[in-house]
């Protein structure tokens, strides 16, 4: 257990360091722009906006809260202080809503959509990859190219195709949104039904795109394990093939947890874009509307939240992996 604590401590330290770097990047990158981002954007906005006085007011308030006229270091401290209190300023485009309010209403949708979808996709992908490795013959010639081809359909492409096929032509699923547009979120049977029917298309399109990459990875991992010495040895001791296949898949599957941790950033990127296609009311769509409206505080906060989510998930997966795979235990815990 002492070893595990050390492993945990090391991972936690990494998490904290990465977190700090992520926050700094999130703060610094937009400020590397030649002009003050907020000022230039507000200027541009005010030009075409009928409500110029409102924009000016947001800007002033933002400047006061975030001290955009003060030196960088001071700004950064203010930024951190505000972020800890969940204060990211007011949204430029959805005035007078606050950024944290917008994010709070979006984050639940994203978590509820993406995590189950990615996990289901991961599981299905692993099962298919393992089967593919075990069957080999025929699969390699015919199914592998097909699987590879499908795995290369970009996330947004899969989303659009699903939307057109199931939403537009077959009309068995609604086209966009998280629930029927004439409803107000509340706890009722009708609302839940509407949410579930709107959930299907985005969910399955993320599942399908996650399957491809995972299956290919699991297939090579399983083939590698099937050629391992312990397989031959176990066979020569008279152990049944079915039992040995069990060993192989367990061993191939465990590193896939790390594979998931490593690819979760990329997967969420694709899934966020899929959200946009379905106008799903999550962080992806929030980010999209923020970008199109040049809503600087909202972009900054959304990217930060997504980074934090990915960091936390990666950290948790690392911890779980360390617990369940004795190979890591042996390498890391002593």
């Amino acid at each position, binding site marked *: 257990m002492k070893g595990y604590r050390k492993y945990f401590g090391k991972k936690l330290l990494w998490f904290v360091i990465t977190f700090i770097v992520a926050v700094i990047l999130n703060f610094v990158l937009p400020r590397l722009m030649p002009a003050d981002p907020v000022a230039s954007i507000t200027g541009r906005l005010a030009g075409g906006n009928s409500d110029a006085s409102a924009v000016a007011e947001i800007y002033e308030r933002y400047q006061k809260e975030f001290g955009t006229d003060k030196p960088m270091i001071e700004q950064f401290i203010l930024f951190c202080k505000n972020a800890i209190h969940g204060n990211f300023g007011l949204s430029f485009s959805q005035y007078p809503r606050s950024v944290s309010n917008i994010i709070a209403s979006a984050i639940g949708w994203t978590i509820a959509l993406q995590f189950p979808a990615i996990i289901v996709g991961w599981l299905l992908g692993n099962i298919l990859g393992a089967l593919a490795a075990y069957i080999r013959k025929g699969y390699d010639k015919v199914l592998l190219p097909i699987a590879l081809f499908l795995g290369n359909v970009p996330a947004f492409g899969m989303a659009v195709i699903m939307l057109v096929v199931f939403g537009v032509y077959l009309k068995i699923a609604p086209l966009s949104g998280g629930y029927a547009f004439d409803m107000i979120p509340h706890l009722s049977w009708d609302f839940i039904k509407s949410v579930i029917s709107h959930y299907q298309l985005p969910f399955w399109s993320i599942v399908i795109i996650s399957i491809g990459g995972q299956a290919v990875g699991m297939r090579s991992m399983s083939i590698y394990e099937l050629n391992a010495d312990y397989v031959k040895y176990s066979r020569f*001791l008279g152990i049944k093939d079915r039992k040995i296949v069990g060993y192989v898949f367990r061993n191939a599957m465990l590193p896939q947890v790390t594979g998931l941790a490593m690819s979760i950033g990329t997967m969420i990127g694709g899934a966020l874009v899929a959200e946009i296609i379905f106008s799903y009311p999550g962080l992806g769509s929030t980010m999209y509307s923020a970008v199109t409206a040049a809503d600087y505080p909202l972009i900054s906060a959304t990217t930060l939240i997504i980074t934090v989510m990915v960091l936390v998930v990666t950290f948790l997966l690392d911890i779980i992996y360390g617990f369940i795979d004795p190979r890591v235990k042996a390498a890391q815990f002593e």
Partner: protein
Amino acid sequence: MGKVMLEVKNLKTKYITRFHEDVYAVDGVSFAIEEGKSLGIAGESGCGKSTLALSMMGYYFPPLHYMSGDIIIDGQNISGMDPDAVRKSILGTEIAYIPQAAMNALNPTQRIIRFIEDVVRAHDPKKSKAEIREMAEARFAELGLPADALMKHAVELSGGMKQRTVIAVSTILNPKVLIADEPSSALDVTSQKMVIKMMRELMEKGYIKSMLFITHELPLLYNVTDDIMVMYAGQIVEKGTAQQMVFDPVHPYSHGLMKSILVPEEGTRGHKLTAIPGAPPNLKRPPDGCRFAARCKYATADCRYTAIPEKTFDEGRMYRCLMGVDKLKEVYGEDE
């Protein structure tokens, strides 16, 4: 003469490559091991000795394929038996195997005791976990292995411990024949000694009845086994007792092999060390005549085109060369 535990008659197996070519890796091998005896097989890498070990298990999976010949364990011919029957009633109980790379022979994510449970239950599904555990603990204690190793994962064991664990697991069902393929080659000297000691113990205590020991280290064989065979290009070229083979090799290949190794004994310091030039023949198309002819400095035109029979001499010695024993000894003498 004791009871014959393992008899191999004219065994032939081949590999089929992914380009559908046949590689005749074991080409007509015959020998026998008596109860309580051990036999060593020596040869360069690629001579087919590891393939011979795999072929004797009677359990084939691609790319290795059985062609012909008999493998008789304690009177029971296992060649041609249904693979599932071999798996159930032969592997592990009649004949057991210690693989070349024992470092990776254990499933890294499984506790040793769980693996032992799987091994025992593959042959006797009724055995309870407690019984197996008791049995494993007793055997580990007997062989001087720490009992807590049972609860560990393979990755948590050191190299030497892993190897000794593999040996203990392989012999847990008291197989009649144990085939060990380079069990100690990858170990440091101390671990190597412990492994050898353990294998001797297994024989002495009667857990195994006979042993086939494969290695490229001849001096090791001299210390471990009763008899030695030298293998070249899929065939046995010479067979005799350890003493005879090391100090009085007859076949030009064995002779060259002995001269190319260092035996740390008195008198060997001054010996000239020679390596055998050339490479073994391609086993996709083995030559018609003597397989060693291309590298043999005493070879004549006849050697290349005449099939060489196994010849016996003295008592129980065998070699495969066109020249007579006396003639060979004479040419060796001239060389000195």
